[in-house]
């Protein structure tokens, strides 16, 4: 049975609920995870069902509750931890990147770290430099995290269940403009989501739209902007393929490279900062696998290495928009091998 669902927030919460109902090892930790469902809805309804024994509002102490997650995981629990906005990672990152991400490796495989981290990402609604970042590139850079970026409700549910069954640290980056919550703009689509449990395998990108003239590669919100850009391009007779990475770690090289070989032109679109990030990594993988098939240098559109400014015209100038994706795609189509 399926029903229509709007946004990823409820899908993630439902996934946790369905696993939690059969798994005593799962507890939910973080700020405002009870009344407020972790603010962006990822834990909504869980407190009402499981109570404060299993759904726990922590003091504002990221370093401590992430450290506690590492400790609880080391003795067999599966903590689900909310990092309310990814921007707050600095307040607890040591426990994440030096411990949660490394203890399995450093202990020679003795300590599993089954920790699922839920965090909200992205801008576009005026929340400024400390509440609008994406930052998954930082996590993807550190060995030891699986990096999950759902773009649809179907994926959000299946990827979350996969995360909860994974014996490793998994960070789920939910874009605020895809949550489907009434107080934020919604750029996703209502879609059918099964009521039963299912998983979406990590490391399998989705080709959201097939095309032959160029490939656009993105994750999260930018998948939807690329889809809209592809529709516009289609009106001008351009056939664009859109790839939704779904997970940055593990990365589906095969799908990316196959698409690049097919179209010969690649545009990577990212809401994270441009330099030393996802776009550079994907570009590397594309050239490594499809160098001889490329008809033009790879292009990228990302946040141009500035913090996200508050004022609307400034914010619009830095976060990739449909119009700028279209413009960049057209410019790429006009480019030759030397452009």
């Amino acid at each position, binding site marked *: 049975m399926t029903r229509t669902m709007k946004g990823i927030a409820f899908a993630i919460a439902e996934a946790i609920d369905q696993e939690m109902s059969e798994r005593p090892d799962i507890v939910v930790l973080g700020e405002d995870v*009870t009344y407020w469902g972790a603010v962006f809805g990822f834990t909504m309804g869980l407190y009402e069902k499981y109570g404060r024994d299993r759904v726990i509002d922590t003091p*504002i102490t990221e370093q401590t509750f992430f450290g506690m997650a590492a400790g609880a995981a080391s003795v067999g629990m599966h903590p689900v931890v909310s990092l309310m906005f990814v921007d707050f990672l600095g307040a607890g990152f040591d426990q994440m990147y030096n411990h949660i991400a490394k203890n399995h490796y450093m202990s020679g495989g003795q300590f599993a770290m089954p920790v699922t981290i839920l965090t909200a990402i992205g801008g576009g*609604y005026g929340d*400024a*430099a400390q509440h609008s970042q994406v930052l998954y590139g930082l996590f993807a850079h550190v060995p030891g995290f699986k990096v999950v970026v759902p773009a649809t409700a179907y994926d959000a549910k299946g990827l979350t269940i996969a995360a909860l069954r994974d014996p490793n640290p998994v960070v789920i980056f939910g874009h605020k403009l895809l949550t489907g919550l009434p107080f934020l703009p919604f750029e996703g689509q209502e879609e059918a989501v099964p009521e039963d449990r299912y998983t979406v395998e990590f490391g399998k990108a989705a080709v959201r739209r097939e095309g032959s003239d160029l490939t656009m590669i993105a994750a999260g919100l930018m998948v939807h902007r690329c889809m809209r850009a592809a529709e516009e391009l289609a009106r001008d007779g351009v056939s664009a393929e859109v790839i939704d990475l779904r997970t940055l770690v593990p990365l589906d090289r095969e799908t990316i490279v196959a698409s690049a070989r097919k179209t010969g032109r690649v545009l990577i679109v990212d809401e994270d900062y441009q330099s030393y990030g996802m776009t550079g990594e994907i570009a590397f993988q594309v050239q490594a696998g499809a160098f001889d098939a490329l008809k033009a240098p790879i292009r990228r559109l990302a946040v141009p290495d*500035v913090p996200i400014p*508050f*004022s609307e015209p400034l914010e619009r100038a*830095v976060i990739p928009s449909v119009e700028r994706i279209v413009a960049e795609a057209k410019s790429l189509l006009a480019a030759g091998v030397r452009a």
Partner: protein
Amino acid sequence: MWKPEPSLADLRYTVEKSGLTPETLLAAYRQMCLIRSFEETIADRYYIGKTPQFNMAAGPIRGEMHLAVGQEAVAVGVGMHLRDPDAVVSTHRPPHHALAKGVPADKLAAEIFGKVTGLCRGKGGHMHLFDAERRFSCSGIVGASFPQAAGAAFAFRHRGEPHVAVAFAGEGAANHGTFAETLNAAVLWRLPLVIVIEDNMYADSTPKWQALAQPHQFQRALGFNVPSYLVDGMDLVDVWRAAKEAIERARAGYGPSVIEAVCYRYRGHFEGDAEEYRTREEVERWRQLDPIPRLGERLKRLGWADDATLERLRREAEEEVARAVAFAEQSPLPDPAEALVGVFR
């Protein structure tokens, strides 16, 4: 914090003994009215385009909005002792602190509207207000204010300057390790630092009793041997007196203090908050302690003001706010090209 109002004799004694003059108290009253009017006007403009469907991205003021209506006495009671070269580091809820530090209301409003005439040329927004001239800064990251204020205090002491630094923070923020870490360093190095904890009972939706092992944060500071005050944050006189002692002590080189001001925010954590974590009755009860009429009543009992004086001060404050907000509304937005400059000097 349900203290009965003092008898007139007590009030006279307290006020005279602490050196509060009619001028100071009237100025405090006006300043609190200014902050109240400023925040209520911002709230009013914030909802333009956000009704009936509340959408954070719509209207002339976008994003989150944290206001401190009800907490004016804390900001003003501390701010009145500060001079331009003293530093203040505030939080995600900073406009009342900014105004109390003397940040001009027009540039502050313009920043909140994202205008190029704003304090930060529209780059900061309401959670990131900076005014170098008044040494005012803040952060949307909870717990960040403590060490930054300590750093300014360190610089003052290091250079032999007679300035103090004030960190404002919520009772929720004081659960963060930065509070304890800062207290330790501040005592160790005898820093001219005053930490002001606005204990408004909630951190987001989380009531204090759910997140705090002691009834109060100041008790933790006592563990570091830091002189600490628990004051009625809805009482300007109480806050003013504690702040005077703490700031004079810091200026004179005796080191840090903590003031925990028990107060209440009448509005939600942010605008649009459904407030499912507290009752209407609780908010109404605290309304009876509203610091502005409370101070007004006392001014009248002391014979230092009549209704007409209070009305005049309130109107003056409202007019100043109206001018500031009009300035903000009429100012231009920044040129999009500005987004790409300013990462480095």
